[in-house]
């Protein structure tokens, strides 16, 4: 059966190279929901908006444009699963479409590798497509579930770069434009049969972005630690995110927080695609959950 919606699947770095279960889950769960994700061959790092944007924004524009051109050549819109990638790929696409001077500058560079940015495609985050009634929608997500995550208390970490800065974003669903107290991800979590849990400072950053994790890891971890304290206060079985870099910061970060601050949380951290995979009947092995730094076992025992 031909899928109704087809996208070039932009992978980024951390999902395929650190949490491959998220990539596997994204492809498999999307297929069940009528979305075909086609490999975007030859794509590179988005490039990392914090690292490259800080050094020279012009390089950031040109490198992101190269990835966009690859999808333009396939005549397909891009779908991706990382907030950091969304910042680079969506935002550069948006800027180049609306700013002729920038576009000309980028095309001058791309000419040296026989490429031309045309501005002919759009970029979407998978979470956005899952929530969008015209593509998938919460009801269809709920209908696709064979293993409801009953009894699990799950908190959401939205991350920053999908929805912020709000003034620049253009979502069809106005719910996605709320950056102070959004609940659309909680709706998706509830659709999996789990109980979404609110907590203090839900919208705070994970602390890893902007190159800070590499520049001053104790500072970055302290920001993540504040969120973990707030999560412990309400008691959750897992934290879910839609950004592999946030996931890495909270997952591996817990090991580093234990080393540096002497506190232990053992809170499983799962990308929403992994959660959706579990709820659609994928096994922990299908999701390579053993690669996580923090064991998902206590959470799995509750939901499997």
């Amino acid at each position: 059966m031909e899928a109704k919606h087809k996208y070039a699947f932009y992978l980024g770095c951390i999902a395929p190279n650190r949490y491959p279960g998220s990539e596997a889950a994204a492809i498999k769960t999307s297929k069940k929901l009528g979305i075909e994700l086609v490999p975007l061959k030859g794509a590179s790092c988005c490039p990392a908006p914090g690292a490259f944007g800080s050094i020279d924004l012009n390089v950031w524009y040109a490198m992101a444009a190269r990835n966009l051109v690859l999808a333009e050549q396939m005549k397909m819109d891009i779908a991706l699963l990382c907030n950091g990638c969304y910042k680079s790929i969506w935002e550069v696409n948006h800027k180049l479409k609306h700013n002729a001077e920038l576009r000309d500058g980028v095309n001058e560079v791309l000419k040296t590798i026989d490429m031309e940015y045309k501005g002919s495609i759009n970029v979407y985050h998978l979470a956005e497509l899952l929530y969008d009634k015209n593509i998938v929608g919460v009801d269809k997500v709920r209908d696709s579930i064979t293993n409801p995550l009953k009894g699990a208390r799950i908190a959401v970490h939205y991350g920053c770069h999908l929805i912020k800065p709000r003034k620049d974003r253009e979502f069809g669903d106005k719910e996605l434009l709320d950056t102070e107290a959004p609940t659309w991800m909680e709706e998706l979590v509830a659709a999996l049969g789990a109980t979404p849990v609110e907590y203090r400072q839900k919208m705070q950053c994970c602390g890893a972005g902007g190159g800070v994790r590499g520049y001053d890891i104790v500072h970055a971890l302290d920001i993540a630690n504040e969120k973990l304290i707030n999560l412990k206060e309400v008691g959750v079985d897992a934290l879910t995110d839609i950004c592999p870099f946030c996931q890495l910061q909270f997952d591996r970060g817990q090991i580093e927080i234990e080393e540096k601050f002497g506190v232990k949380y053992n809170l499983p951290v799962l990308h929403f695609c992994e959660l959706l995979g579990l709820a659609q009947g994928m096994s922990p092995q299908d999701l390579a959950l053993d690669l996580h730094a923090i064991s998902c076992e206590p959470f799995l025992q509750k939901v499997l």
Partner: protein
Amino acid sequence: MARIKGYPEALEAKLRDRYVYGDDSHPEFTENVEKISMSIPHLCYQCGTCTASCPSAPRSSYRIRKFVRRVVLGLENEALTDPDLWLCTTCYSCTDRCPRDIAPTDVIMAMRNLAFKRDIIPVNFLKTVQAIYTTGHGVPNNDVNRAARVKLGMDADPPTTHTYKEFIPGIQKILDYYKLKANADRIVKEREG
């Protein structure tokens, strides 16, 4: 309406005078930041909403409001040599909440761009450049992950530049166009030998 001597000419002249001139003050710094950030920091009335929204502020001396003020005053050296410049996580909370519609996050990014032109940059940023130059990825694949991918029934390497290495020269050409790799190598070598 209150009238001052020379109104409206004197007032208009004052309003035109955006910059404070002093030995440390460089009006072109303000202009450069505005151009790169595509934001208008001199609209700032120093309310501090940005600092109050900042996750880095409570755990450091980083004050985004202070950096915006430095831009307005043209205090280039003071701004670019402050190590706190690199503590912004780019969460964009300040940008979302700024009542003057400034994008303080982008103002910080513009200052970082200008700092890099003077070789002021933490090495971790440059190492990301080096990794992408060689592999196309900022976070490249490794053996543990390759084994896990195979167990999942996937190819050991993702269908990115890792598999299609013929795309890497194109990436290198883009980075070389801006002399980014050469500069990164030189600065890393100076710092680490």
